[in-house]
């Protein structure tokens, strides 16, 4: 079974520039999550999708961050414009809505963003 795919793995941009991250979840997983992990901290949920609908985006800074999952499969997270404090690893995860491993989240390798 292929894992969660993310690209790019690394990105360096200047502040005020835009950036986009892509995620392809495990096949058949209806729920997709984007997390932000700042160095030395645990991951913080930004947005949760079930199929192509948003379940929770309460911690997404909506003035600069946006995310979509148009066909209920892969997803894109965008930051526009970036700030220095957005430097972090952006993790995508997915989970199933059925089965024994219902509550387990499977994480991708992450995208390390550096804003200069």
């Amino acid at each position, binding site marked *: 079974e292929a894992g969660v795919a993310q690209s790019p793995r690394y990105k360096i941009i200047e502040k005020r520039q835009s950036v986009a991250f892509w995620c392809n979840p495990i096949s058949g997983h209806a*729920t997709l999550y984007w997390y932000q992990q700042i160095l030395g901290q645990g*991951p913080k949920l930004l947005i949760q999708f079930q199929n192509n609908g948003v379940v929770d985006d309460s911690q997404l800074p909506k003035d600069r961050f946006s995310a979509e999952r148009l066909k209920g499969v892969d997803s894109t997270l965008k930051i526009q414009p970036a700030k220095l404090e957005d430097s972090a690893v952006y*993790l995508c995860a997915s989970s199933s809505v059925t089965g024994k491993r*219902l509550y387990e989240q499977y994480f991708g390798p992450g995208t390390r963003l550096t804003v200069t």
Partner: protein
Amino acid sequence: SQQGEEDPQALSIQEGENATMNCSYKTSINNLQWYRQNSGRGLVHLILIRSNEREKHSGRLRVTLDTSKKSSSLLITASRAADTASYFCATSGGGNKLTFGTGTQLKVEL
């Protein structure tokens, strides 16, 4: 915001020893999960304990949960160098939304 606080922040032990890390949380939960993160394999799910369970085992892992104290502990027995990683507890209050703690950095020395 971080729901869980792990303790200790960092732990260094010798190979073969047991490692215990603790997690405290603030609000009621449906389940509590432990994840491991290292540079090689990223963030990986280890074990889940439901709010109506008190103890769970998986291989060399033992997790306990005390909902009255809002705390959990993870015990790794007979540790190996490969167990060197950061360990996070994550709580779910419903809807499968996870709130992660601050993590414990475990170093297992040969």
